[in-house]
């Protein structure tokens, strides 16, 4: 079984501090990390190849420094890593990103299953996984919380929906986007980290994947960001302290006045 896990490198929001006066993010010196939700996808893919045999290939589109995210995926058990990197890919929206990833998966050729995290913590769109599935012409299961069974023909998964759980049987090849609930990602050991440092990361550019160059990057993206702004800053917090009966009364009175209760 050949499993591809798609990952993204994102700014580490845990390292982001808030400018108390402007209420905005202080982004200076913020390190880049493997998208936290992708760690569950990596673990899911690696665990499945360990159980069923096969290989797990990590695939990432991003600038050259995104190689670090791929090395982490290797340290967490992936067998092979491919970085899709080219100025031609820059500025891609979810349509164009999923297109380029689909071209890369197609080039790999014998892929049975693609794992993605639920979404990336910078864009929060959750659109690349389903987009990738359609570009490949494959079915999908999103919000997967449990893999019940995986054979060469199909996977049975449990997914979390707005209404509870749904169990699906999806014929392969297919795309899964997974939740944190799926597993407990292993921490890379010191040895595996050393190995990952030496492991080659293949670099594929726009010319290496068989795709329509007009669909890549910003030029191939139907959407444009026309404005970015910080949301209105909340007023200072009104804080009550002291006798619980009194503070509770003040809170209830306030919520009532604002018709919140």
């Amino acid at each position: 079984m050949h499993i591809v896990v798609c990952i993204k490198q994102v700014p580490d929001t845990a390292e982001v501090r808030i400018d108390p006066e402007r209420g905005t993010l202080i982004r200076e010196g913020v390190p880049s990390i493997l998208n936290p939700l992708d760690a569950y996808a990596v673990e899911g893919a690696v665990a499945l190849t360990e159980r069923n045999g096969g290989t797990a290939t990590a695939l990432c589109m991003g600038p050259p420094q995104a190689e670090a995210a791929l090395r982490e995926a290797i340290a967490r058990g992936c067998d092979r890593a491919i970085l899709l990197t080219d100025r031609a890919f820059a500025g891609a929206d979810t349509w164009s990103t999923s297109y380029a990833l689909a071209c890369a998966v197609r080039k790999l050729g014998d892929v049975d299953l693609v794992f993605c995290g639920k979404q990336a913590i910078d864009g929060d769109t959750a659109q690349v996984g389903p987009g990738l599935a359609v570009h490949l012409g494959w079915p999908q299961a999103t919000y997967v919380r449990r893999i019940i069974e995986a054979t060469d023909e199909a996977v049975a998964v449990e997914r979390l929906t707005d209404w509870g759980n749904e169990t699906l049987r999806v014929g392969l090849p297919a795309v899964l986007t997974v939740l944190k609930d799926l597993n407990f990602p292993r921490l890379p050991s010191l040895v595996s980290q050393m190995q990952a440092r030496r492991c080659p990361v293949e670099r594929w550019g726009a010319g290496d994947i068989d795709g329509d160059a007009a669909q890549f990057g910003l030029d191939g993206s139907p959407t444009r960001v026309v404005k970015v702004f910080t949301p209105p800053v909340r007023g200072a917090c009104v804080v009550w302290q002291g006798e619980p009966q009194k503070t509770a009364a003040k809170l209830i009175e306030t919520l009532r006045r604002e018709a919140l209760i």
Partner: protein
Amino acid sequence: MALRIDHAACTLCLRCIEECPYGALAQLEDRIAVGEACTFCGLCVEICPVAAISIEAKETERAEAGRGAVLVYGEHHEGRLHHVVFELIGKGAELATTLRCPLEVVVAGHGLPDVCAQLAGLAVDTVHLVEHPALAQYRDGPFGRTLAHLIGELRPAIVLAGATGRGRSLMPRVAVLCRTGLTADCTGLEIESETGDLLQTRPAFGGNVMATIVTRRHRPQMATVRPKVMTPPERKGTARPRVRRWAVPSELTASRTQVLARQAGDQGPVNIAEADVLVAGGRGLGGPEGFKPLAELAALLGGELAASRAVVDAGWVPYERQVGQTGKTVQPRLYVAVGISGAVQHRAGMQSSETIVAINSDPDAPIFQFADYGIVGDHREVLPALIERLRAARAAEGAEDE
């Protein structure tokens, strides 16, 4: 495309370097240099005080005249339309009025009950009913192809769907099939007066930044919209929309996906993303028993129980109630956080809530930096006091009613 910096205009204030989310900018002697990490997000363009930065993209030709309708995707569960559909109709009617175009709804399924009755008295001109035995159970694949097919036939200017679990899985498929743009989780939609294009505003970076996105040259313009953000319209009269029935070519409904089972969670369906009031607990509650009074408070406020990552990981509360980066993003009218310190990851999932109340024993907890109201105190004393007062108020109201 390229990021252009007008070095003559640049004052080297370095704000762009500070604010770049991707660390793509650097100072190289007396110039700002653009690194490979640049994703053309446009934040630097926006914040540059002297307008020295611009993005140069290939000139895009205008979209073909989009005079079609505003089309709302009618998500339903066994024929009952989801409340977000009515919220979308409210917003869609506004957009349709501005664009002077019809407002239409598409509902797909099999053996649907009278959907039109649910849409009576609203500003919907036409309901497109698509029925096929293969659509009896919802599945992303067949529903996506069906919707894309209908969009191809109808050529709407705008397609709106709820940013529900279903909408967020379905619409990205439809957008790729239609070769058009899709903006996820919008909280604001309006028509740009000069162009008639749809301005789609959404939170990004866990709600720390708002971005306005536009689809210039592709149609339809597609957006998923967060539930409970738009206002449902009032019903006027009982007039029903016109119905148009569609057959689906069978090749669209073929699928390798089978639904084996569907069941609601242990305590019935829980969807904290759509609750009006959430009462969330964190590690500060000390243990699973700390959630008992919290559940009571949630019930008294007419809300749902939610939790931070720490307590979900500890197994005190099931995952479907987790708020934050690795859980759900919520936007209730009232969010009460008890014993939650307010780490950035938690904040990312709830900071768009209308009103935030924090109860915490640590006056320096970060949650007080972005809450509207706070009580510094021990939850073991504050919660019983709140519950007692709310109960008393409830009893008094009950007595008045009699």
